[in-house]
């Protein structure tokens, strides 16, 4: 069985050969899974946790968040970049209007949560296509606030 894991921009294929034998990049590792998410490989101890579409791995003070690739989730060229709140927050200020050209990194919305101002920045350069919130509104995470059409 082959599994595709994604970290950042890169995809990695991992072959599960049999119980405890896993191949990554043409090397085979003997992986011993102990109780409570502890995994031992050679002299290393790792901790792992799984959600339906992600894997969390802790090794030596570093945390790696991997997503499990689903077959249809492919990137398109010429797409909409949608921005959402990272946490429940109040919209303090909307800094752009529909039709404005924004550069990646520009502050487009200022949210307030936990008594702190949180600037939301454009992830990619493009044109503001739609704004789905108003100033003063309480917004929830993962709900699009603003969409940027990326050429």
């Amino acid at each position, binding site marked *: 069985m082959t*599994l595709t*894991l994604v*970290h*950042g921009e890169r995809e*990695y294929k*991992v072959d*599960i050969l049999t*119980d*405890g034998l*896993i191949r*990554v*990049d043409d*090397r085979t*590792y003997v*992986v011993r*899974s102990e109780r*409570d*998410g502890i*995994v031992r*490989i*050679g002299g*290393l101890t*790792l*901790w*792992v*946790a*799984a*959600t*339906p579409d992600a*894997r*969390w*791995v*802790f*090794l*030596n*003070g*570093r*945390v*790696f*968040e*991997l997503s*499990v690739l689903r077959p249809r989730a492919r990137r398109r060229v010429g797409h909409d970049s949608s921005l959402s709140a*990272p*946490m*429940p927050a109040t919209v*303090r200020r909307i800094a752009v209007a529909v039709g404005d050209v924004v550069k990646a990194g520009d502050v487009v919305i200022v949210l*307030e*949560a*936990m*008594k*702190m*101002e*949180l*600037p939301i920045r454009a992830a990619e350069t493009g044109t503001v296509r739609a704004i789905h919130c108003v100033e003063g509104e309480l917004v929830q995470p993962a709900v699009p606030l603003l969409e940027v059409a990326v050429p």
Partner: protein
Amino acid sequence: MIQRVLIANRGEIAVRIERACREMGIESVAVYSDADVNALHVRMADRAVRIGPAPAIESYLSVPALLEAARHTNADAIHPGYGFLSERRELARACEAAGIVFVGPPADVIERMGSKIGARELMRAAGVPIVPGETPRDQSDAGVLAAAHSIGFPALVKASAGGGGKGMRTVRSEAEGRDLVPAARREAVAAFGDGTLYVERLIQRPRHVEIQVFADSHGNVVHLFERECSLQRRHQKVIEESPSMAITPALRASMGEAAVAAARAAGYRNAGTIEFLVEGSGDHARFYFLEMNTRLQVEHPVTELVTDVDLVRAQLLVASGERLPWAQADLAQRGHAIECRVYAEDPDAGFLPQAGPLLVYREPSGPGIRVDSGVAEGDVVGVNYDPLLAKLIAFGENREAATARALAALRAYPILGIRNNIPFLARLLEHPTFQAAQVHTHLIDEILPELTQAADVPAEVFAAAAIATQTNQRSTPSTDARSTVDPWDTIERWGR
């Protein structure tokens, strides 16, 4: 002696106070909002009382709800912890009116030291050095900007009523100030309900060094040396240590004396902290009074480890009217302690607070390692309160040994399921500038790219991640649907 203490707080500090109570044979009463029904501080306490819905303003910040909870449980004292109502005179005053012991200074002292202007005047009179600054009489944006101009750029504009970095902005020019002054005011109003702004000279590359003081009601005042708190992000401390490598014995002695003089001038009682900015190094370094924190500090454990005292125990003794358990001559610093604050936040995204489940949460242990935490594996971290999960405190015979222990502990402190700053802390302790003790308050900002750069993923990480999949497919209990049984859930408890 106090018999039963209501702890008007949550998280790790509530758990810390509960421990001290247990050791002293004092009953602890936890309070909780609807967001904290299953929180660790509730599970650990002898009794627990609901005080309101999730928003802090209706629960942990509600003086009437806390007083009602204290009356209902016959608590004879309230410990405020830090944050929330700890430095608000209303709670101390309500306790005084209700005949309940407030574990902290008298209400009028909180009020006096809570006003930055009043505290500065008091310190000036007591001969304690202060940073040049003022609260402009003309509080319009233009008035605040004019004050910044006369003090000189760069200037620091901050909420007169506040702390914790909320409503604080560094203004480098008049042009910058036109945006930043209104922003500071908005945050000040949102955080403290008071938009009054204070302007002071920004001390460049300062160290933030504070002195722990303690006073009883019999006229005894001592200091317990310094804590170096220079490592901050967004004006919040991340790592604290004691001793400070920048403080010479002569400077330590004069700062200690100044802190005791400050506490005496304030008419102080119980545990408090005098914060100083230190400019330069060596015997000729200059220090300035910044503010007094009229409460127990988050970073109190580093002082406990190097002086071998229990500050919370001493707080409860002094609040009971007893004498301080130590005289100045009994107190000495030995070894070195480092505290790392473990936050549910994403250092790669501007330290944004995170919410989510603690799928894996395992605390390190070993010689010289202490973890004060407010969470356990399986808990879900919400967004209602401060994202501090725990504090890792390492002790060693010197700074190098303490750093090595802290690093080894961070490398064995897995927190999975929610983004957190463990990797960031490990990188910070690994950084040559930290290891050389060249810390100042802007260091994290200066080296941030090095602390947050993406790590290469070792192949073993993918292999381990694949195993997690296999385990799930075999329908053994997966880590995200952990079905641990909490014994407390099965016990019918009173007072809830």
